[in-house]
């Protein structure tokens, strides 16, 4: 099991807070300034199957949909925006309410959700890239339907085989539109080598920030 020191963990949480804050600001603009509440990011080292269970528990076992982007570089991994399926359309309706007639909206729901994911996930990745002063390459966003199993079943598309017993760094944060009881999750999964590289970048960033 890979461990981070308390200071490293604190620094990681802080960087993620900045990144997720940027995503929340983007979401806030998309839904006409409704307040977006965020939980504290939760960081754990778990097996992929444990991460799947954790996600299923968080979402109450209800069917979920997700938008996923793979990022590459010294840290490779997946970043996901996850919603309970039953509520995802509400977000799409909120986003498009000023622009789209209701009958057109239905056929565009999936595309609209991918675009929500595109904006939020890139806000998150982009702010981390800007903090580290280093570009992060990422794939185009894809839509994933089904339960937590399929959503966190990762890795094959990068030519690696993801095994359920592999330990990963699993970070997730819950966000909610305060006035609507509409919740979603931002999650990030990295393998151990990537998590170590990420930790190193954070250390360098903190050292620079405090002028050491």
């Amino acid at each position, binding site marked *: 099991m890979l461990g981070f020191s308390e200071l490293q963990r604190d620094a990681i949480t802080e960087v993620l807070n900045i990144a997720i804050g940027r995503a929340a600001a*983007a979401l806030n603009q998309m839904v006409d300034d409704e307040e977006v509440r965020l939980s504290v990011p939760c960081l754990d080292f778990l097996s992929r199957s444990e991460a799947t269970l954790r996600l299923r528990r968080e979402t109450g076992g209800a069917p979920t949909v997700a938008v996923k982007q793979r990022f590459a570089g010294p840290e490779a991994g997946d970043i996901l925006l996850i919603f309970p399926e039953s509520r995802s359309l509400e977000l799409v309706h909120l986003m498009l309410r000023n622009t789209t007639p209701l009958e057109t909206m239905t056929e*565009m729901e999936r*595309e609209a959700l991918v*675009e929500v994911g*595109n*904006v939020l996930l*890139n806000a998150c990745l982009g702010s981390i890239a800007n903090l580290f*002063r280093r570009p992060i390459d990422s794939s185009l966003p894809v839509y994933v339907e089904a339960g937590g199993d399929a959503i966190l079943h990762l890795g094959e598309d990068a030519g690696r085989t993801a095994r359920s017993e592999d330990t990963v760094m699993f970070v997730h944060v819950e966000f909610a539109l305060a006035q609507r009881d509409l919740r979603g999750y931002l999650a990030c999964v990295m393998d151990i080598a990537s998590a170590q590289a990420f930790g190193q970048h954070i250390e360098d960033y903190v050292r620079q920030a405090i002028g050491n």
Partner: protein
Amino acid sequence: MAVGTVLLVDDSRVSRLMTRSVIARHHPDWEVLEAASGEEALALSTGLAIDFMLVDVNMPGLDGITTATRLKASHPAARITLLTANIQDAVQDKARAAGIGFIGKPITEEKIARFFSMGGAEC
């Protein structure tokens, strides 16, 4: 401003729709052309006079920075901006170096309207 022509380049139909609706509200008489890829934008724009172009960055095929740079070469008088979720400094630096504007998504009425009201000046 007189009647204008706008080219929207974005693989997301939803994004094109949202931008188009803002233009329709603020400039109902303008013509709006759409392309779902860089390649399509280059083909569609050939020989056409276009006043404004808004170009996404992360698209399948030709990326938005290459597309926008080529569009700028073929349409030097057009006001061109990136309109993208990719807010990385590296992307903004490239846009600046190429003389192209930058607008970060999400698309909002205010951002799009401001781009046109400033005559396409960098946002």
